[in-house]
Structures are given as C-alpha cells and as structure tokens.
C-alpha cells in the first residue's frame, strides 16, 4: 500500500467540500487495523493446502527439509518409453479392479460402521466440517435469494405468472428450512439446557406443524 497515508495525497488538490476534516482523519486513523480470524479458518486453509500437495504435514519444523525438496525433485520425462505403454495399461487395469473391489466393499458396509467411522473423528475435524457445511449452506441460500430476486423482477417486468424457476426456488427454500430444523433439533439434543436453541426449535416446530396441517412435527427421527 502507499506510504502516503497522512492525508497528503499525490493526486493534487480536491474540493474543500470533500476533504477530510482533522476530526475525520483522526477517526479513520483510530480504526482498528486488525481482526483475529476464527481459528478454524487456519485449519481449513492448511488442510486444503495439504490436500493439494502445497504443504507437507511431515515438514512441520522450520528449516527441516521435506521428503522431496522442490529443487531436488527428479526430472520427469515428457514422453513415455515403449515398454511403459503395456505396463501402464496393466497398472490401469489393476487400479480399476481395485477400485471396483473397494467400491463393493464400501457399499456393503453397514450403517452402524458408517456411524462408528463418524464418531471416531476428532472433535476439531467435526467442527471443521460443520463450519464448511454452514458456509456452503449460507452461500447457497444467498445465491437462491439472488435468483429469486432476479426471477421476481423478470416476471414483474413481463407480467408473467410464476415460472418453473420460481417453483424450484420454493423447493430450495423448503429444503433450507428442513435443514435448519434438523440442525436446531440436533443442537437441542446436544445441549438440552440451552434456552435459546430450544426457543428456535420451538418456533421451527410450530411452523412445521402449521405447514403439515396440524400434525405433530416430532414424528421424524433425526440421525
């Protein structure tokens, strides 16, 4: 950034009307320059960089070389040699077969095993997943809201009846409410003494009851 942050600009004189007053300059100068980001954000970024190979989890100590320092990586040939072709095909077939077998194995795992796997994850990993899912949920809702605004403007402009797009948007809204209810239910189960969460759950339950035509909403079992 520029070093000329003392109010003296290089771009010449501006209208007096819009020059900052000394009080305003002081107010701007007093604005905080930093804000601590959430800890989970750092983990999210580091995890993404580990996954794409930019960071190596083994290279934790400063100055310690990783297993394959970039400068010492063996040179790669751009062309396949003749003997490599059949070997590559054979390797591909083996990998494909292994993939099919693994897929079959995964597919036959019981739900209990799947739950066990989830439970075995550490709390930090789960918190990270919740943050990522929450972020994706909010982003998708924002996009849906923008789509809704655009569709409404278009219909109003052309005098059209609600379209298929509007129907899809309503479905998205219902799905969002369902997810919100599920999340509130799980939160209430996790912390039954949290009055705020219970209030949110109660509001959502009342809404669901209304929308289901008066049927009690607690019939659903949430996993």
């Amino acid at each position, binding site marked *: 950034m520029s070093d000329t942050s003392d109010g003296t600009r*290089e771009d010449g004189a501006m209208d007096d009307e819009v020059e900052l007053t000394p009080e305003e300059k002081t107010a701007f100068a007093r604005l*905080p320059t930093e804000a601590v*980001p959430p800890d989970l954000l750092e983990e999210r970024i580091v995890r993404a960089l580990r996954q794409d190979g930019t960071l190596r989890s083994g290279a934790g100590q400063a100055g310690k070389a990783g297993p394959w320092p970039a400068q010492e990586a063996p040179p790669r040939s751009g062309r396949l040699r003749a003997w490599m072709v059949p070997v590559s095909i054979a390797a591909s077939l083996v990998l494909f077969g292994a993939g099919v077998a693994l897929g079959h194995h995964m597919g036959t795992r019981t739900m209990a095993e799947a739950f066990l796997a989830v439970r075995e994850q550490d709390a930090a990993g789960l918190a990270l997943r919740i943050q990522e899912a929450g972020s994706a949920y909010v982003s998708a809702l924002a996009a849906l809201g*923008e789509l809704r605004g655009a569709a409404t403007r278009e219909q109003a402009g052309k005098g059209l009846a609600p379209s298929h797009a509007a129907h899809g948007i309503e479905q998205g809204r219902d799905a969002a409410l369902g997810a919100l209810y599920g999340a509130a239910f799980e939160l209430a189960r996790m912390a039954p003494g949290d009055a705020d969460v219970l209030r949110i759950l109660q509001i959502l339950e009342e809404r669901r009851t209304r929308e289901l035509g008066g049927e009690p909403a607690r019939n659903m079992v949430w996993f």
Partner: protein
Amino acid sequence: MEDQTSDRELAHRVVAHGDEAAFRALYRRHAPAVYRFLLRLVGGDATEAEDLMQETWLRAAHGLAGFHWGSAFRTWVTGIALNRFRELARRKGRRITEVEGEWEATVAVEDAAGRIDLERALELLPPGFRTVLVLHDVEGLTHEEIGARLGIAHGTSKSQLHRARRAMRKLLAVNLEMA
C-alpha cells in the same frame, strides 16, 4: 524464534519444502490485517470475509514461488485479497467500480453511548462507496493506485471518493441528529 524469521525466509521454506509451520507463521503474522481489510470491504459479513480469506491464502500459497518481492509480503497478499473481493463482487453483480448517484442515509449509526461509529457507517455504505473509501482513507492508496487495482480511471476513483465522503457524512449526520 519463529517470530524473528523474515517473511521471505518463511516463504522460501513453504516453496522449497512445503513447510507447514512456516506457512502457519506467515499466516498468523499477516492474517489479522488481511481479515480486517476483507471484513471492511464486504461490509462486516463474516461468512463472506472467511471465504475470501481462504481463497486469498490458497492463491498466495500457490503463487509464492512467483512472487519476486518487489513489495512487502503484506502488500502483495492484500492485493490478492482485493482481487478476490472484486471477483466476488463480479459474481454477485455488485457494482464497486462505477460511480453511484447521490445516496440518502436513512439509518442511524450509533454505539451504546450514542457516539459516531465510523466502522458501522462504512458497513452501511453502498459497496461502490465503501470500496473506494476503505482503499483511500483507511488503507492510504492514491487514486492512481486505486485506479490500477480496480481497473478504472483515477478520475473515476476521485469522483467516487467525493460521493462516498458525502454519503458517509450524511450517515454520520443522521446519527448526530438522533443522538
């Protein structure tokens, strides 16, 4: 001590060895300033600021090898953050580079003591006004620098700043009248 290691040395360790500790040290040193910058640009929306932070630091990590240290590391990473913000604005159809017309302040801005809250006023400004005000009056960029970074003429930046300051004063005036 890690804190005494220069940005350049830490960056070298990240590029050469994929050193996670070095990356974390760089991140912890500069993330608070970058996060505050992004929070201001997006008007205080923490979710958007966090997503932009992630995009910014991933880009920075991937681009470290190509960074020639012609500027400070923080300047460079803040520039990446600004580009990510511009991209977000483009995706969401927010106009940040066009001169907006006169804007009427209708919202009271006050803290618990009824005083002017400049930070809140910045959040309430339209994106186009807020962007130029943050870049010029908070970050200290010149109009030429703003023009270059936002892809607009420096005269446009100047006009935008004039209107932004007027809008900010209207917003703060509403507060003063109501306090």
